[in-house]
């Protein structure tokens, strides 16, 4: 997946497929997938506080990104999510932004 173009591709994004592509592991159970996804959304939201936005899980396979003024976008994967954040919030979503880093350095860790 291209983070800039958001080109759609078959199958889940690398960030959601576990840590070993070579392993023919049993797929995660529905409950496990739900918990992992809920955790990911909580972590994303800790980052999105910087932009006054929120994300939600949508049908277990997509995310909704919402801005405080009601703008919303449905996206398939994390690279698309960052594009959507920039569109609805009108700011650059930059992990090297000093203010974001300082916030995360002080933030409460997110529990699973």
């Amino acid at each position, binding site marked *: 997946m291209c983070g*800039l173009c958001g080109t759609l591709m078959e199958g889940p994004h690398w960030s959601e497929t576990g840590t070993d592509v070579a392993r023919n592991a049993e797929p995660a159970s529905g409950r496990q997938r739900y918990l992992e996804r809920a955790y990911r959304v909580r972590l994303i939201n800790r980052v999105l506080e910087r932009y006054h936005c929120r994300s939600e899980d949508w049908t277990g396979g997509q995310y909704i990104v919402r801005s405080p003024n009601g703008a919303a976008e449905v996206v398939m994967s994390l690279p698309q999510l960052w594009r959507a954040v920039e569109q609805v919030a009108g700011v650059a979503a930059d992990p090297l932004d000093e203010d974001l880093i300082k916030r995360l350095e002080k933030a409460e860790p997110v529990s699973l």
Partner: protein
Amino acid sequence: MVAYSTLIPIFVVTGFLGSGKTTLLNHMLRHPSLKDAAVLINEFGAVGLDHFLVKPVDENTVLLASGCLCCAIRDDLKSAILELNGKRERGEVPRYRRMIVETTGLADPTPILFTLMSDPVLRHHYRLGGVITTVDAVNGMRQLDRHVESVRQATVADRVVITKSDLAEPAELARLEARLKRINPTADTMFGRFGKIDVRRVLRADVYDPSKKVAEVKHWLDLEALSAHGAAHDHDHAPGKHAKRDVNRHDAHIRAHVVTIDQPLDWTAFGIWLTMLLHRHGQRVLRVKGILNVKGVDAPVIVNGVQHIVHPPIHLAAWPEADRRSHIVFIVDDMDGALIERSLAAFNRVGAAAA
């Protein structure tokens, strides 16, 4: 599901015009381990290829609407591979087990890599094995000065082959080697003499081949060698030795940074962070290669990316060294390595409570 290691590896051979790509290919194809390789070439050069499966490809690049150059789809390449794949399946050509794609000399190879790694159909049958870049010992310096494509070809390489090294003065050769190692210290730089190279060493570039990946990862993360080639290990705030740079060069601001994270990484936080980094800075993050200590995972995890494109992660059977910390080499164009490390540590910290 098809096991990733059984997919047909594709090696991409790139290099500037006249840098000896075809000579290198001719030599490689005589090696027994490549007797069952199919070859796709972009142009018939002055040197003919004597091989059973050689197919030319017309250049036809489709730029996506966003204008992101590294993510252009090479429709021609996709069609050529799928056509060959169909013939293979129908028994019209031998069942080749590897593929080599030769790019044109003027090409930025990233669209080729993007096509190979992102097309859903290709990904079902093939995987990227490695990128081999040829650089002419005599003209390489000038080409790096004048052509940004030449620098791009060096940054994406897993193997850099300095060709015609028998024709260059030793001092000239040493300067070129030092420059190439500064641009891309994670690549194994080797010499071709009289059109000959160590083919086995070239083919070790395949980090997804279970028999080769440990040695390859060891090479990526040889921290001592990285530092000697000018990479900054920002973790210790001890900058490496830097050569004086001419700011007018295309590679003047390209630099490798070794990011080290002491705490085990939260995989979810890492995915959020890397996708966000590549979203915003992908055009300046030329390579990412790393070994990660991931919380809850016994084996080391390998990450490998080129600009916006990330290979699927893979496990190593064992840690190559006693050091169990996560080390990631970023080859970046004018970015602050210490800030990258601080940002990753901050994201990881927020996920630190997870089991």
